[in-house]
């Protein structure tokens, strides 16, 4: 596996003049699952979206600091944000399959839009991606039907298949299960653990059990109050963070969420 360690240093993110997160320093190991936890509004999504330059697609939003992917700063002037997003896939809180496209076309969309048209190649990638997303068995008979017709959990797995079809190195997931029922949630958690062998995964979650179940490392963010920037408080192996956090705030938060 190629080295695609992510090194975040001195990262701040802004919405217009508002500094939403400040001075994040964090290393994300390849082939691991890292969970971002913390109270809402502390900047988890913002940091996550800064890792594939999605943050800057919001009008007025910008970042400062460095994010190295395999040693290369994705914010370097010579870097193409579109190439960054191709290398770092993303799954969103709300499943968002393209409503005008069939299941097949949804999965193939990334390749197609990047210029791959050979039917054989597409067929193969669609099948492997759907299999990797544990969705193949459920949809193989109706690849031509609209993606929007699937259940919520299936739609989210379709979005995961769509994201991994372009073979990214890293997969970012922003509360991918928060809109799903427990069974679908378990299916997606299983999937994450399988995918970890091929992808580096970063997941934002509000669910402490989920963080404990799936992640290798955990980063805890917090925010002092409205209008102040969020910060990374502590980071480390998930076990340690959950069992013996070194910062009081972390302990309180985790206790509160579990309690």
């Amino acid at each position, binding site marked *: 596996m190629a080295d695609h360690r992510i090194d975040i240093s001195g990262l701040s993110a802004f919405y217009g003049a508002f500094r939403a997160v400040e001075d994040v320093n964090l290393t994300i190991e390849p082939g691991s699952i890292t969970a971002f936890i913390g109270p809402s509004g502390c900047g988890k999504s913002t940091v996550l979206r800064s890792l594939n330059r999605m943050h800057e697609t919001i009008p007025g939003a910008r970042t400062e600091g460095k994010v190295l992917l395999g040693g290369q700063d994705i914010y370097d002037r010579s870097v*193409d944000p579109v190439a960054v997003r191709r290398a770092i896939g993303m799954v969103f809180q709300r499943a968002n399959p393209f409503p005008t496209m069939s299941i097949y076309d949804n999965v193939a969309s990334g390749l197609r839009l990047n210029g791959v048209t050979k039917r054989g190649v597409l067929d193969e*990638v669609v099948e492997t991606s759907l299999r990797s997303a544990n969705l193949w068995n459920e949809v193989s008979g109706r690849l031509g039907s609209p993606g929007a017709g699937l259940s919520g959990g299936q739609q989210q797995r379709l979005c995961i298949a769509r994201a991994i079809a372009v073979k990214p190195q890293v997969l970012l997931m922003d509360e991918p299960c928060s809109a799903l029922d427990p069974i679908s949630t378990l299916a997606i958690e299983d999937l994450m653990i399988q995918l970890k062998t091929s992808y580096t995964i970063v997941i934002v979650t509000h669910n402490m059990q989920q963080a404990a179940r799936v992640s290798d490392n955990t980063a805890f963010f917090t925010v002092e109050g409205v209008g102040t920037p969020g910060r990374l408080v502590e980071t480390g192996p998930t076990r340690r963070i959950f069992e013996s956090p070194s910062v009081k705030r972390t302990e309180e938060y985790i206790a509160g969420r579990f309690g």
Partner: protein
Amino acid sequence: MAATTLSADVPPSLTRPRGGRRADRAFRALTALAAALVIVSLVAMALFLVDEALPSMRHYNPVSFLTSTRWAPSEAVAGSSSVNPYGIVQFIYGTLLTSFMAMVLAVPVAIGVALYITEMAPAIIRRPLSYLVDLLAAIPSVVYGFWGVFALIPALKPVGAFLADTLGHVPLLGAAFSGPFFGYSYFAAGVVLAIMILPIITAICREVFAVAPSDEKDAALALGATRWEMLRMAVLPRSRSGIVGASILGMGRAIGETIAVTMVIGNSVLAITTSILGQGSTMASVIVNEFTEANQPFHLDSLFVVALWLLALSLVVNVAGKAVVSRTSRDIA
């Protein structure tokens, strides 16, 4: 590029392709060009109208167009500029009178229809009813004019005669309703315009009423309010400026209406007719009537003067209406 993205083991280059994302930039530039064209057309419109009107405004005192009610192209003499034969006050009067009449007639009906649709109609017929009312807006102006001449004017004759017989003899007020009434009139134009702007005003009122918060309506009903009291407590107070804005926008639409008005207003240009039962012209109707037959000195140029003032008037009214409506929706939101 596709090949590299397909093999996961070789990280694709993150470096910007030479020449940047040309397609992205070209696409953005094209859409910007389209937007620029739209803005340019607006500016060009004003400039070209001024340019065409200029000879006449140089020849005569530019203010004199607004101080005379006499439009007599046959009296224009190329050499003389002492008296401006192209007074346009009667057209401004005709435009304002007919569109105001249209507004006065249409607004109560529009409010009623909008209230019926949003508050009274069973849910399943709301949409069909809205479509039907909107159909009134789909009927072309020329058809309204034609229908106005043959169907509406005969029906208005007894109404006009009645108004002339009754209100026409009241002191002061009488001037506005004095006969005789021949059908073709400001009145007929106002009624046709009212029908034409009814759907626009209704549509905006519908939106305004629809945003009244349903928990307030429920609260009113739970207090034992009747439907009327509920509307008065929870719907109408919030809707006041929305209705005002809708009325102004409807009037703005009426100001520019041309063909239908031309067909029913009688097209007399020589002076202001005070009675709404009399015949006259609007700014739009005089332009369309005389444009292609303007053969007197400064005649066409003066029609451009009319067009310029018509543009100015409709801009002012529309912007005002828009401002009022958008202020309401912000208040509500």
